[in-house]
Each structure stands twice: as structure tokens, then as C-alpha cells.
């Protein structure tokens, strides 16, 4: 069968980095091609080349789409031909409505006057197609990430998509939303639309992909055909990292001691709507050497809980007590919380995690500048040594620690955020989706670091939407829903079904 897309011999270099060297991929009509590879392997870059983000001439090699060589100079060139990309970081305007976002730049208009009736009608149609039950007038800010993702896809459909590119579409979705999205992709396949999907979630890939192309260090190492043979996850991992990875989680032998971190009767209200209670009388404790997980669906209030604890960086009318080593501590501002030994690594690395215009070294030391300074004067060499240590320990893929973080691949940005908080030397570390967008190999390293911290007698709290991850790293799991803790279970006795059941049972009861 004639492929709909072929990319041949693509090479792309950035100052100091060869992001892609001589990469070939092809996509057949009506198929789902998965592209996998470690963080920094070049997946996003390849898709940016394809969609015209990097214009013709800034890379070498050829793009053949529908049998013709194409030279895209800008994104709209590829969009016009039905190639639509949905980037790793969503690009919707938060304060505009769904309809406005879908039609942004393509408003149905006569003489510059927008025909909103038509826009609404078509939005409704599109939303139905992607299975999103929302009014076209709803503002994007009021939607969860999963729904925003669907709006992006509706937007793509509106542009008569023939080849849909999704860069880590499910990385911030929970199980249910992910499944809905995958089902949608399969439906598109029935209709003859091809998709390229980049993901680090191998189980999803096994579920939907027709073929899998594996990149490593900017080169195509393999293309696996899922219909010719049964492809196991281990087989994919081996191609990705170039070696066997026997366990997904490092072994753990927890020595659990007395409680060192306690949150008592914690409540907090929405920052703008003073009558909307976001966190409802939460009690939580972590013992020395213990890793505690918080499970829940998107919007359960886990991030809000963590941020309200961490120096009241979220919400208002916050009440409750925090105890460290049995003694009440003041965590009312971020510096005070940090002094008390708290650290919170955010899930939103671009908005809250990184100074994107600055380089890796400065980002890593930002939360603990005094740790590399004497009398408030920064010692450059000490700082450099620190940055290089974390680069090594976490395997941050970069040309040097002087690389600007905006130019790092998504997963490597995440590692910089983690490094920053590890360097702050906390006693209580709250990790919010610590492995979002991180490849399997690096996940293993991060779990290893979590174990080390716990073994060193620190308290670690892991918030994650991936239940398998929580079951693998945590000793004890709290289940959160609608701002409340609805269940607590030792990880040994927990299972995905048990967690889901606890959530389901609590629906509607949370407001009693």
C-alpha cells in the first residue's frame, strides 16, 4: 500500500545538538503509528519538522505526503493539507470559550463579522463527534485537562484532518479519559484518518498501534509491526533503551518509623470563589521512611491540597495544622514551609516549575541558592558541580548545563524540576506527577531516587494519576475524590479496582 506520508533521511541540528540524524518514518493510510523513544530522542522535533514548525531549509531530508514532495514553510502550509499536530503542551486560549478556540483564526465570517450561530452549531457537531458533553460557550479554564485535549481534537477535526499527530496526548489524562481518547483514535482509523501518536505509556501503545517506530539518540532504530507478531512491552523497551529492563520498579525494603509529617483537619477554599470548599477536612500522615501515594481522578483536589500545604500557594481561608516530628510548624509562606523542610515539585513544569529563559544550572539551584553561596555571593564552581551532579544522577540529556531549559525535551525539563527540589534537601518531599512525560528507563531512576530518600528517613508523598505507578512505589495509598480522602489502604492490599471502587462509592457523598 502506498504510504500517505514518508519522511526520508531527516536530519536536524540545533547549536550544540544533533536532534535528528537521518531519520526515516512512514505512515500508511488509516493506521495508527506510534513513535516511541527515550526523553530527548527527538520525537517532538521530528513532528515539528513534519508540521512546518521548523520550516523547509532548516533541516535536511525530504517529506513526501500523498506521494508528492512537500516543502512546508509554516504551520498553515501543512494544516492546509490536513496534517494537524497537537503539541505536548496544549495551546488553547484559557479565557476564550470552546467555540472561540475551535474557530480561532478560522472564524466563519462575512466581511469580518463573525457568524456565531454557525460557529456554535458546528462546534456542537464537533463536540459530539469527540464525545465531549459541554456547551460551546464554556471557557477553557473551566475544563479539566482531559476535556481540553478533546477540544484540541475537535479543533483538528474542524480543519479536515487527514493525518493527526498527537504528542503525548495522554500524559496528563487519567485512565478513563485516556481510554476515551484512544477509542476516538481507533474510530478515526475506521474513517480513514491516520494518526501518529507519541507516548511513554507503553500499555496504551500496545492497545492501539498498528506499527511502532522507535527512535534512539535521534536515529530510527526499529519499526515493529504489531499485526505481524505480538509485540510485548518489554520488546519495545528493549528497542528504546538498547538493553533489557527486567523490572519496572526498583526493589524496596521499607524501614518505617514514627510519623514525621502530619496534616490535621486541613481545609481550603477556592481562591476566587470564597464559598467553594476545595479541600474538606483532610487528615494525612507520613511516617519516617515511608512513601505515601495519593490516588484520585483529575480534579480530585490533590494538587490543590499539596499547594495549599506548601506555603499557602493555593486557595484562601485555609485551616488546619501541620506537624513535623510531632511539633506544630508554621508553613504559612513558601519560605517558611521550605525552612520547615517541605518541598513541592509541581506537575506544571512550564508555568510553575522552570524559568524557561534561563539555563539548567540556574534552575537547579534556584530553590537553594544559599547552598551554593557564601555570604550571599554565589560560588560559580560549586554551583556548576552541583548542576553536573544532578545532570549525571538523573540523566538529563542536554548539550551542557548551560543549555536553556526552554530547549530541553519535555521529559528532561521534568528532570530539571526534580533536581531543583532534590537539591533543596527537604525532609518532606511532595511530588506531583513526578514521572509525567518521562521515559521508562528514567522512571526507574526516579523511583530509585524516591526509595533512596525514604531510606534516608525522609517522608515522600507521591501524587499520581497512574495507579500502576502508585502501586509500585508507595507503601500506603490515600484515595482522594472531590476534595476529600475517601479511602486509605496499604499498597500491598491495594489494586486498581479497589481504588476505583473507593472513588465510585464516594461520588455524591462528598458533600454530606
Amino acid at each position, binding site marked *: 500500500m502506498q504510504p500517505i506520508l514518508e519522511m526520508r533521511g531527516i536530519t536536524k*541540528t540545533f*547549536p*550544540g*545538538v*544533533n536532534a535528528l*540524524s537521518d531519520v526515516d518514518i512512514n505512515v500508511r493510510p488509516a493506521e495508527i503509528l506510534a513513535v516511541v523513544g*527515550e526523553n*530527548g530522542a527527538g520525537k517532538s522535533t521530528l513532528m515539528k519538522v513534519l508540521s512546518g514548525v521548523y520550516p523547509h531549509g532548516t533541516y535536511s531530508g525530504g517529506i513526501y505526503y500523498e506521494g508528492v514532495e512537500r516543502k512546508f514553510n509554516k504551520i498553515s502550509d501543512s494544516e492546509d493539507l490536513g496534517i494537524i499536530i497537537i503539541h505536548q503542551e496544549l495551546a488553547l486560549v484559557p479565557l476564550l470559550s470552546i467555540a472561540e478556540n475551535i474557530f480561532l483564526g478560522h472564524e466563519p465570517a462575512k466581511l469580518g463579522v463573525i457568524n456565531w450561530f454557525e460557529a456554535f452549531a458546528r462546534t456542537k457537531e464537533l463536540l459530539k463527534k469527540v464525545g465531549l458533553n459541554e456547551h460551546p460557550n464554556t471557557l477553557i479554564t473551566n475544563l479539566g485537562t482531559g476535556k481540553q485535549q478533546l477540544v484540541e481534537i475537535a479543533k483538528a477535526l474542524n480543519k479536515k484532518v487527514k493525518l493527526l499527530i498527537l504528542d503525548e496526548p495522554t500524559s496528563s489524562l487519567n485512565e478513563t479519559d485516556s481510554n476515551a481518547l484512544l477509542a476516538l483514535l481507533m474510530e478515526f482509523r475506521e474513517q480513514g484518518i491516520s494518526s501518529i501518536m507519541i507516548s511513554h505509556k507503553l500499555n496504551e501503545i500496545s492497545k492501539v498501534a498498528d506499527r511502532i517506530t522507535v527512535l534512539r*539518540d*535521534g536515529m530510527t532504530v526499529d519499526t515493529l509491526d504489531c499485526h505481524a507478531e505480538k509485540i510485548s512491552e518489554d520488546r519495545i523497551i528493549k528497542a528504546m*533503551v538498547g538493553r533489557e529492563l527486567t523490572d519496572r520498579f526498583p526493589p524496596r525494603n521499607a524501614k518505617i518509623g514514627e510519623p514525621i509529617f502530619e496534616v490535621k483537619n486541613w481545609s481550603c477554599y477556592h481562591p476566587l470563589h470564597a464559598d467553594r470548599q476545595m479541600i474538606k477536612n483532610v487528615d494525612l500522615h507520613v511516617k519516617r521512611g515511608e512513601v505515601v501515594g495519593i490516588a484520585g481522578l483529575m480534579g480530585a483536589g490533590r494538587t490543590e491540597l499539596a499547594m495549599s500545604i*506548601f506555603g499557602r*500557594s493555593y486557595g484562601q481561608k485555609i485551616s488546619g495544622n501541620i506537624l513535623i516530628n510531632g511539633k506544630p510548624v508554621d508553613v504559612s*509562606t*513558601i*519560605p517558611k514551609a*521550605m525552612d520547615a523542610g517541605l518541598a*513541592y515539585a*509541581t506537575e506544571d513544569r512550564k*508555568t*510553575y*516549575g*522552570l*524559568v*524557561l*529563559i*534561563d539555563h539548567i544550572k*540556574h534552575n537547579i539551584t*534556584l*530553590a537553594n*541558592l*544559599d547552598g551554593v*553561596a557564601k555570604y*550571599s*555571593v*554565589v560560588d560559580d*564552581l560549586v554551583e*556548576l558541580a552541583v548542576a553536573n551532579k544532578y*545532570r*549525571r*544522577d538523573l*540523566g*538529563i*540529556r*542536554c*548539550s551542557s548545563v*548551560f543549555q536553556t531549559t526552554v530547549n530541553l525535551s519535555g521529559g528532561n525539563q521534568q528532570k530539571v524540576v526534580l533536581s*531543583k527540589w532534590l537539591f*533543596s534537601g527537604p525532609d518532606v518531599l511532595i511530588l506531583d506527577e513526578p514521572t509525567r512525560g518521562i521515559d521508562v*528507563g*528514567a522512571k526507574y*531512576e526516579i523511583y530509585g531516587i524516591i526509595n533512596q530518600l525514604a531510606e534516608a528517613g525522609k517522608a515522600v508523598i507521591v501524587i499520581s494519576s497512574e495507579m500502576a505507578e502508585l502501586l509500585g512505589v508507595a507503601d500506603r495509598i490515600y484515595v482522594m475524590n472531590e476534595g476529600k480522602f475517601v479511602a486509605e489502604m496499604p499498597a500491598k492490599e491495594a489494586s486498581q479496582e479497589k481504588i476505583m471502587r473507593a472513588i465510585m462509592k464516594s461520588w455524591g457523598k462528598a458533600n454530606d
Partner: protein
Amino acid sequence: MTDISTPQVKPDFMRFVRSNIRDYALLLSLLAIMVFFQFNTHGTLFRPVNMTNILLQNSYIVVMALGMLLVIVAGHIDLSVGSVSGFIGALAAVLMTGTSPNPDLFTIPKFDFVTASIICLGVGAAIGAIQGYFIAYYKIPAFIVTLAGMLIFKGLALSVLGGASVGPLPATFQLLSTGFLTDVFDVQLLGAPFNLLALLIGTLITAALIYFNFKERRSQLQHGLAEEPEAIFYGRNLLIAVALIGFSFIMGQYKGLPNVLIVMFALIALFVFITTRTTFGRRIYAMGGNEKAAKLSGVNTERLTFWIFTIMGALAALGGLIFAARLNVATPKAGAGFELEVIAACFIGGAAVTGGVGKIVGAVIGAFIIGVMNNGMSIMGIGIDWQFVIKGAVLLFAVFLDVKFKNRG
């Protein structure tokens, strides 16, 4: 552990030049502008008297630009610095001469110039602190707060002076702007007296600068960090040496080094140090780059903002004192429009409107680009009207180049 060696392209000459093009372009522009005016003023520009003049005329702009750079890097702006410096100049004149704006109602004792200056700097810092307080803790945009400040202090300057000019100021105070370091030698050069002290100090500063540069280079080499190609490093040091020694030689042919130049150099050195080496400076860049991330990393962004504006206030006051001392009189119009030159200096010097980017040295060079243009155009007899037009165009062009280079990444 996963292998982290990314395929590296060897650092080379052109790549280094390209990644630092903004800095070179700035310096070369200053040189080009100087050469241009040197020709078009028939050699007047580089004359010792004129060089001294350019320095004196710009000292207060440079001083204020130091603070403004912090403000802009932090992601704010301060429109009030002109009015504040005018107000402080007025206050200084009133205190030093003991002139009451309304003698029927109250009298003002006459202060000696040291006490008066200290009071003035304190008042300036307090003004900055108040503005900073509203900006930092009440989150009122700096644009609004300092626009209000601009109006308020313009009014207060008028009121303090009772609408008239107040002067003359004590002779010792004037020395701040009109005095020179007294020569200890008695040397003649080509039949004219030559200030050897100026040349000596210039040479010493050059030697110290080059010593530190080499020391840093050595430590960079030891740690495999030296990105700068050898040729550029030596070229840069040579240029510094030629410029500084040449400059002090020129200054020596007139009256030597002005007092205000010493103040200015000390402040520049201090602010370069603060911005590049201290945690305080580092936090300013982080806050300007991403305030939310800085805050979540434990940076006390409110307090930082507050201090930045306090510093700005004190520097605006110092600028006002220097200007008053230079004119030997405080006029109601003093300080008008300074904020524009100060802000322009920072942006020409490469600071970004969005915050997080900018260098002290850039702002200083930016200030001198404007200063040399002012001076050169005046000598050429270009009217004040066209001077504004040309300066505006230069500002736009500089920022245009910035944006263009950035987009090419």
C-alpha cells in the same frame, strides 16, 4: 545510568560570536557612533573638554539606569524617576539654602550639605519604598503606581520650590559634579599641564580588570568551561586596555578625573557584582523570567520587588543631587524627561520588556550611546526637534534588532 552524552558540535569561533552577537553589536554601535560624530564634529567629540562634558552630562542618567535595569529585569518599569530626581534636587536646594517656599508660614533651617544629602538620599529611598510597597504587596502594576508617582513628585517639586528656582548651592556641594580629583603630580605634556594622576588611576583600574579577567579565564580553563575562543578573549582585553587607558589619557589633558566619575564607576562595579554574583541578583533574574516559578521556589518575590524599588528611589535621589550640583540651582523643570532617557538606555542596552533579561554593562553602554548622540548632534547644530526623532528611531531600531535575533534563535 542512561548515557547522557548528547552528540556535541564542537564550540567554534563563529558560533560563539553568533551567540553573543547582541553584546558585540552594542559595543560596536557605540564605537561606530563615536567615530561618526568624531568626523562630523570635525574632531570635537574626542577633545578632552568635550569628553569630560559627555561624562558629566550623562553621569546622572547612568546612575539611574543602574537601578532601572534591576527594575526592568524584575519585569517592572519606573516612570517616576525623572520627577523624583527633580523633587530631590529641589529638596536639596531648599535644605542647603534654608529657603522656605512660604516664608510667612514657616521657616526652614539651613543644613550643611552632608546632612542635607543624606536626608535627600533617605527621602529618595523612602519614596521608592512606598511605591515598591504598593507594587509588591498590593500587586498594583508598576506602570500605574509610578505614573502616579511621576505626577505627585512633579507637583511636590514645584511646591517645595514655591514655583521659583532656588540657588546657588554651597560650593563644596557643587564639587560633586564639577570637582576633579586633585593632581598630586606636577607634570607638563607638550607644553600643557598634564594630570598624571588620571592616567595612573586609569592604568591601575585597567591592570586590575585584566588581572581578574585572566584569573577567571584560568579557572574556566581548568574546569573546561572556557567557551570564549582565545582570540576573542585577548582581543577583548586589548580593547578594554586601549579604551580605558586612552580615555584616562584624554581626561588627563584636561582637568583629570571628575569626582562624579569615581562615584559612577564605583556604583557600576557594585551593580555588576550584585547582578552577576549575588543571590539577590540571581533572584531578580529568576523572578523576571518566571515569577510563579520563582515564588514556588521560595523566592520572596514581594520583598524582592520592594527592595528593588527602594534601591531605584535612592539612585533617583542621587541622580537628582548630581544634577542639582551640576546646575548649581534647583529649577521646577529639573528632571523632566529623564525617565525616558533612562528607560531607553536599558532597552538599547539589551534589556527585555518581558523581564528576566538585561545586563548592567549593557545599560551603561546604552546610556552612553544616547549621551554621545545628544552631545554630537548638539555640536553639529541639529535642532532639539530632530534630536528627539533620531533618538526615538535608534531606540526602535535597537529593540527591533533584538526581536529579530531572538526569533532566529
